[in-house]
């Protein structure tokens, strides 16, 4: 006796085995469309995270600018510090996301080093709020009474020493790690109240061209050795959303501030990236639409090919709802598997992307963000609805014909 079940017989009648290659083709189109859509949303979201993310680390979207007041022949005798009014006004500028005061030393500081690299020199120091530092070494702390002083040096200073100063003086070139091993004696103040510290370079900064000491150190010594009220900000550090914005650029220009114009040009690239990502997004939606259309056309073709069997099954008393459900039970799992595979690819891509950007000192979440999941839910809901409607329409058309 035949062991064929009703389902197997229906499959034989309504789906058949002859369209395997067409089925794989339609599924591939659907898979490509879904994957492209999810990956595009993911790329768009990742760029958004990199451009405007709230991470404490670097983001591509924020450019750090150090600004000062331009010194000209005409204003050389005027004050070049920022007043509270200047600072409040800058905070109101839409492009300015954050603002920090760079506090310079208002005390005499002297550095001494013995040995082969022996030097004695007056030095300057500056403090920036910790949130503006491009890296935060674990040693980066100082408390009153502590003899050890951590220093962050501008990478530019190291380059100037290695490529310009050392060759001319016959001095050895130094790597970052060898500089970190050197202890420098720092003398602060003059006379009997002079304080001595042992300084170590603990890191290098690409962002601020200065000799940075912890804010607590500068504030403590400014209080002891500086004059009350003379600690005004000579330089500011800004976290700006888009410094290439013309309104922002003209604000900087009209107020007579100076900054690194390279940063302002660089951020134009970001606008281009945004346009390209948006355009790709539209393209992916079209691609997903084509993928869904190909799959729905395949279903309609399958039903059209099985029209004779479908008609006879209805004539024998099979209910259109039952046959519709049967067709859906055949096609929907394929759609579901396709979507799941696409989502797995999106998850894996996000993981790879997060690892790759880490090497660039940027951060991205390990899992895709909510817009990707939302795109998945919306696209699969539309897809399931369209496939379901195509099947039921084809079955009902047969009954009504």
């Amino acid at each position, binding site marked *: 006796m035949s062991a064929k079940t*009703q389902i197997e*017989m229906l499959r034989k009648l309504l789906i058949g085995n002859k369209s395997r290659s067409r089925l794989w083709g339609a599924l591939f189109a659907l898979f490509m469309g879904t994957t492209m859509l999810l990956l595009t949303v993911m790329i768009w979201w990742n760029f958004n995270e990199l451009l405007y993310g709230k991470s404490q680390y670097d983001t591509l979207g924020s450019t750090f600018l150090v600004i000062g007041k331009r010194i000209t022949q005409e204003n050389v005798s005027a004050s070049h510090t920022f007043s509270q009014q200047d600072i409040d006004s800058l905070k109101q500028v839409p492009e300015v996301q954050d603002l920090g005061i760079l506090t310079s030393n208002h005390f005499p500081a002297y550095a001494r080093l013995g040995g082969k690299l022996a030097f004695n020199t007056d030095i300057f120091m500056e403090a920036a709020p910790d949130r503006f530092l491009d890296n935060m070494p674990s040693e980066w702390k100082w408390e009153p009474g502590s003899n050890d002083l951590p220093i962050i040096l501008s990478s530019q200073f190291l380059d100037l020493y290695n490529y310009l100063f050392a060759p001319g003086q016959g001095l050895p070139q130094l790597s970052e790690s060898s500089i970190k091993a050197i202890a420098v004696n720092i003398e602060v103040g003059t006379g009997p109240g002079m304080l001595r510290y042992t300084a170590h370079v603990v890191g290098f900064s690409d962002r601020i061209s200065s000799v940075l000491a912890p804010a607590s150190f500068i504030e403590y010594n400014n209080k002891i050795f500086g004059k009350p009220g003379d600690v005004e900000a000579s330089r500011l550090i800004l976290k700006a959303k888009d410094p290439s914005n013309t309104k922002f650029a003209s604000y900087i220009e009209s107020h007579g501030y100076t900054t690194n114009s390279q940063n302002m040009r660089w951020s134009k690239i970001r606008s281009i990236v945004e346009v390209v990502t948006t355009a790709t997004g539209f393209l992916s939606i079209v691609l997903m639409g084509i993928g869904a259309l190909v799959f729905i056309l395949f279903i309609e073709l399958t039903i059209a090919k099985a029209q004779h069997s479908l008609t006879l099954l209805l*004539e024998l*008393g099979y209910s259109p*709802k039952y046959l519709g459900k049967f067709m859906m039970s055949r096609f929907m799992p394929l759609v579901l598997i396709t979507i799941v595979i696409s989502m797995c690819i999106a998850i894996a891509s996000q993981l790879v992307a997060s690892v790759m950007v880490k090497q660039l000192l940027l951060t991205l979440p390990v899992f895709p963000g909510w817009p990707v999941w939302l795109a998945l839910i919306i696209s699969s809901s539309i897809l399931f609805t369209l496939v379901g409607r195509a099947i039921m329409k084809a079955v009902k058309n047969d009954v*009504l014909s």
Partner: protein
Amino acid sequence: MSTFFVRAPSGTGKTTLVHILYHLRKDHEGSVQWGDINMSAIGPEELAALRSNNISIIFQDMRLFPELTAWENLDIKRRLSNTVSPEQVEEWMTRLGIQDKKNSLGRTLSYGEQQRVAIIRALLQPFDWLLMDEPFSHLDHSNTDKARKLIEEIVAQHGAGMILADLDENEYFKYTKTIVL
């Protein structure tokens, strides 16, 4: 229950009438009523329920699935209502002499064999009425007699009525009314 015989020569509308009664054709005037059900207002699901529980049919052109075997053609109908056991189907196949054609594809069966499969298929569901459109046109006397007896037996079990459309005068069943077109 009643047994109607619709007698008419070729091309006078026998099959059309049977198709109208089974709601395969809607291009007609007047209305068809099965009990309380008005066929011109029937929905797809209600129609499917009527066809699987109340009205069965033997088509003139048999209408088997060519890609299914004789057994599968019967089984796909049997499983719809599951009121007849597979053993019963086998017995009926044996009675009509098509047991050895069980695994033959529909497309390879002779007209006579197809007609016997179509007759058994019509009996694999509960019904109140059995519509038959020239049901023995491809059968010889002996096979006609076997099929007639089986139909009569099952119709009696269901307490159902019959409407038979055919070309010529016959005495296949005891007709309560003969309509000549």
